[in-house]
């Protein structure tokens, strides 16, 4: 006899529609709580630190960073890739929801999308500021000019520009369109005239008619379909920045899929971190249930396996290729040598620690989930560190080998992006429902009936 699966309810607590609206609009309607104000203050401080660091690198030059003649990219590009990776989860969730009909994702995708938008904004900062002359950044756009200058279509950096800007536009669009019905709900409920006007403008005259819903669903599905390849393309192209080059440790065909999986992995970990914090802050555990956290943990476990496999394959290919330089980079610089600490942090955080999610108990412990989600992002940061720095610092000619130390300005810019991210997320929490009310309502009754599959048995 085959045992039957019974789907669990996606929203617990036997909510009525009215309850849902009320509970989920709490954050936008009330006064901001104390923790919000404190966090906002801290975020602004971090942003100010970042502003100073930004000013330093603009006014003094990139010499204020820790880069050397050999290590041309350091924390800037590490952070860029890291933030881009984090920015993957939002769109992925939306696509899970819209394209793959993963209804459980409905209550998460709003926050995940917000996270994506701010993460991509943080990421987008780095390619701009890492330029020696950022005031000429427009050179990188293929705009018509009388000098007949054109960009180099062979350069992955140009592909980056296209991929990231497309991705940012797409994720902002998806995020924004997804919140239109909710903005209309706020508009309709608020008693403040000013607020009504603002929300009124942004809700695009939404009237909640069946007709509107029909069009709206179609639009979202189409956009979701369009966005799906972007999720893959962005990080693939970021990976090509490295794979196209000649450096040992960069020049590898495995990098695009490896980066893509890594991105989903780190993005999901960040979603998990944020969901846990939000569950703590707001009374939303009926909407983001154990089941949600469990699902994310399972995805992380799967991602961890793929990442671990990728690490293994990289090492194997380095050995199998018989190329001295590759062998040195992987076995002498990374596994043992100057970068072994970072390498083993990377391996343990990404490939080993998440294996704890084989245990149901671990998946159901908020503490474990939280710690692991943080560790994964630490590990993913170190992954980018290892890839970038070890290949650059110890490449072909030993005469040019250098060490790499970040400066206070490097750190400042990184902290500043955290500030930007925090402030952005807090503003989002304050002004927009963190869970898509219009998505949750249709699924709120789901799972309350017992569905028996495999009826044949």
């Amino acid at each position, binding site marked *: 006899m085959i045992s039957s699966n019974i789907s669990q309810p996606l929203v617990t607590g036997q909510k009525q529609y009215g309850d849902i609206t009320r509970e989920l609009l709490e954050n936008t309607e009330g006064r901001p709580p104390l923790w919000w104000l404190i966090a906002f203050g801290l975020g602004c401080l971090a942003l100010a630190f970042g502003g100073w660091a930004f000013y330093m690198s603009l006014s*003094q*030059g*990139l*010499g204020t960073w*820790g*880069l*050397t*003649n*050999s290590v*041309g*990219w350091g924390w800037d590009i590490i952070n860029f890739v890291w933030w881009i990776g984090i920015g993957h989860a939002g769109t992925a969730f939306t696509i899970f929801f819209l394209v793959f009909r993963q209804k459980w994702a409905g209550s998460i995708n709003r926050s995940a999308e917000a996270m994506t938008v701010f993460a991509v904004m943080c990421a987008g900062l780095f*390619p701009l500021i*890492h*330029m*020696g*002359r*950022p005031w*000429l*950044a427009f*050179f*990188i756009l293929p705009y018509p000019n009388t000098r007949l*200058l*054109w*960009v*180099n279509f*062979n*350069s*992955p*950096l*140009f592909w980056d*520009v296209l991929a990231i800007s497309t991705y940012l536009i797409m994720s902002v669009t998806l995020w924004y369109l997804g919140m239109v019905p909710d903005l209309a709900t706020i508009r309709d409920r608020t008693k403040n005239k000013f607020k009504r006007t603002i929300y009124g403008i942004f809700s695009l005259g939404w009237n909640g008619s069946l007709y509107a819903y029909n069009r709206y669903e179609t639009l979202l599905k189409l956009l979701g379909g369009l966005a799906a390849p972007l999720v893959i393309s962005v990080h693939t192209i970021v990976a090509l*920045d490295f794979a*196209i*080059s*000649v*450096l040992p440790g960069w020049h590898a065909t495995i990098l695009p899929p490896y980066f893509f999986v890594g991105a989903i992995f780190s993005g999901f970990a960040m979603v998990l971190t944020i969901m846990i914090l939000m569950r703590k802050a707001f009374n939303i555990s009926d909407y983001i249930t154990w089941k949600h956290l469990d699902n994310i943990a399972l995805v992380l476990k799967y991602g961890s396996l793929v990442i671990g496999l990728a690490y293994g394959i990289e090492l194997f290919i380095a050995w199998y290729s018989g190329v*001295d*330089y590759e062998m*040195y980079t992987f076995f*002498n610089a990374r596994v043992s040598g100057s970068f072994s600490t970072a390498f083993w942090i990377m391996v343990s955080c990404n490939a080993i620690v998440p294996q704890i999610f084989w245990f149901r108990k671990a998946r159901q412990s908020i503490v474990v989930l939280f710690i692991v989600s943080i560790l994964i992002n630490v590990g993913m940061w170190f992954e980018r560190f290892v890839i970038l720095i070890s290949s*650059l610092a*110890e*490449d*072909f*000619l*030993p*005469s*040019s*080998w*250098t*060490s790499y130390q970040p400066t206070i300005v490097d750190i400042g810019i990184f902290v500043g992006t955290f500030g930007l991210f925090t402030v952005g997320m807090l503003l989002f929490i304050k002004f927009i429902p963190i869970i898509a009310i219009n998505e949750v309502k249709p699924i709120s009754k789901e799972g309350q009936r017992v569905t028996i599959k495999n009826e044949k048995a």
Partner: protein
Amino acid sequence: MKKTTYWKSLEELQQSTSPASSGEDLTSTPTPIEILSNNENDKASSRRDFLKWCGISFFSATVLSACENPVKKAIPYLTQPEELTPGKAAWYATTYQHGNEYCPVVVKNRDGRPIKIEGNELSSLTTGGSSARAQASLLGLYDDGARYHHPLKNGNKISWEQADYEIINKLRDISANGGRAALVTSTLLSPATQQLISHVQNMHPELEVITWDAISYEATRKAHIRFFGENVFPQYHFNKAKLIVSFGADFLGTWAAPAIYAKQYAETRKISKDSPHMSRHIQFESYVSLTGANADTRIVLKPSDEKRFLLALYGEMLRQTGQDDYAGTTISDAEFDLKQLASDILEANGYSLVVCGYNDPNCQLLTCAINQMAGNYGKTVAIDNQLMIGQANEESFGSFIDELRSGAYSAVMFYNSNPVYQHPKGELISEALKTLTLSISFSGTRDETAEACDFILPDNHYLESWNDAMFKEGCYSLAQPVIHPIFNTRQMQDSLLKWTGSDMDFHAFVRNFWTERLYPLQTEYGDTQGFWLNSLQKGIFERKAETTRLYNANYQGLPIAADAIRQLISQADGTELVIYPHLAMHDGHMANNPWLQEMPDPITSVTWDNFIAISPAFASKHQLRDGDVIRLHEKVEAPVLIQPGIADECMAVSTGYGRTNAGKVADNRGYNAFMLTGVKNNFRPFSDVLASWEKTGSGFQFARTQTHFSMEGRAIVRESTLDNYKLDPAAGNELHAYHEKHKLTLYPENIYEGHHWALMIDLNACTGCSTCVISCQSENNVPVVGKDEVRRRRIMHWMRIDRYYNGTADNPGIVFQPVMCMHCDHAPCENVCPVSATTHSAEGINQITYNRCVGTKYCINNCPYKVRRFNWFAYADNNRFDYHMNSDMGRMVLNPDVTVRERGVVEKCSFCVQRIQDGKLKAKKERRHLNDGDIVPACVQSCPSGALVFGDLNQKDSRVARLIKDARNYHLLEELHTLPSVGYLTKIRNR
């Protein structure tokens, strides 16, 4: 316009109608803000307000914008000099000389200012080669911080007339009172100056001339007096030697005439299939010198052991020639097979050469004897047409110091001499000078001795002076001013002429000297005017006559010398100290030159500092780490540097650092190793037994340009031995054929229809002297970035000398490899630039368009050779980088043909594209094709050993086209299939 005012309460109505009740003083003058804020109607702004605000905005905008952008003036010639075309370079031949240093040069002048120095190709001594110091001497011309701008008396400005008046009076008094005067000078190479001085001495017999060198070659002369009865510094013909044995002589780096020796040495090291012969070079030394690094066999010995080996070699030679061995020292075969060496020297039958670097007359005498027994005199060593260096006399200087302190002198003058810094008794000299009636320094730049003198009468820079030089007997060169004196300075010779009442200037004096003394020696020119002008144009005049002569040696002094050396050896116990001249700093007189400060020492790759080099074994024995500061002789504190290849129980220190009054660049940088030198038997031997040393506990950070020294088994520098080469010219280079055979690419190879520029580097001829590095820096406006930035590994040099070790840490094999942009045909940097700022020219040059570069640094990352440099900061006009590019005077040295790069752009070697364009234009104007060798990049031009060859691969008979087919040719990282335009010829060692 009057507005209707409404009131809402009686109080308000009352207040508004009776303002006086509020107690305000209505008669007070309104402030500008009040005027602007419109008292009479503060409800809304009127059109009047708008205009007022406009007015003040425009006004402040005008004022503020006028504050910005200071006006820079480009002033044209009022009357254009006839021979000067703006934008067109003129070249003048002159001579770089300072003490024992010498290099005939030509100076490139653009719009009246010298911007580049190159070796004079007409000189038979250097044939166009130069040294890093000669290259960098240009920058000293524009060192407005270190040069004296006018005469000084006790630190106060004084006019030349006043100074002359006072000095002439004082000299007259001294003369009348029977006082003594001394002129202290380093070795004078200038015959005209020498004649002038003897002319002055004739008039003033009380003037003594005391010749003293900080780095002296006096012992060689003394030994030749004892051995041949002639006071000479012989000329060595390294090019004729089949076996070169050097005892501590760094003849390729700093000893005697390295630029000349490097050229001769390279002649014996360049090897081809047709003539597979090269010299064998054995170096016995205690520290790692440039010469030792190039040697086929390098024996590491403590200084005392070096002498023991020299003595034993002499004894062995005595035995092998059937004489009585009174040397009394033998070396066990386990240490070194001296028997073999002695028989090799004898077998070479006059074509060996033994040199000794110690300024010790006994050692030099042994060297003379060995050379004489080997039959080398007359073949590889000659005492006719000697070199004029090393005329100093330490003994007379010693007694001079004593007499100076006892008050025997009334007047002392210093010319090209800085004993306060360079002599261990400098402090005493400085004190004694203060008690004199008259003390004069002719130093053109700040120095420690000048600071102690009453009068500073600044000499011109050599590029502003008339002079001549005779480095080798019969080889004269002229020095002419290439720019009017920038500051209110006067040549020392002119001062002397003035004081002796002559109305002649030194220009006329030199001219007379040449036409009277040298004109009769030649037959080419029939009139003195033609001779003078031609000599001036060529810069050199060489008398061809080489005499052959008999060498009657006197061996009588040898047993005594052997005894003395034996005694010296027996005294040497414990840690020994060896002092050597720094390759870039030398005796320290150009220490304020930031180019030289930032030139990486080719052996240690340290910039901006000197150090105490110790062996790894010594370091581990005493638990010393790189940068640990130790105290020597309780005199100097300096950091240690662990240097493989130094003798155990030996510390090596270099001179030239530790200046205290040289200028902002050099002051208090490093430590003064001259303080560690001692005078023994009237000589400064530059090696000593170390009395004491102790750790201080403090640390220090070096700025090194290379920190990893192993090739990690990669085929970067390919090396083989002569025996293997004879069997197969491709020995050591087997990989080249492999990669050529197995190369595979998706892309078509570039086709060059016109030129295809290429550079070939013969690793066998390259000595690592780094002249090319400074030449490149000078030609291409490469900025100086300072110690901190070098330490962060951000040196801007377009060209670097990589150095790798192989073998053991006790005595490693050392190889050098000059690396610049490879100008790859499949350049990895080019395809990754998003804005196409770096592109490939139709002539195979990888070029950067600075204006287009946005500075993503992707090209830097993707360059496997890491030759690209990023402008991390604005290096010009930035107080943070207060070197020559931060002042209007210093910037005069910049080459107007090369852009000064902005902050944030990438730069690198361009194959001196400005020279290529210039050469092409010249050929075009002359309606001819380019010839091989017409175009010479700066690095190639300056190379004293001719290790670099530049040319067109498409020109069938060019040297590069021939060399690239040589079996020794390979490309760096050729397995990447980047198809570099730079090729290397394998290093062959004769062992």
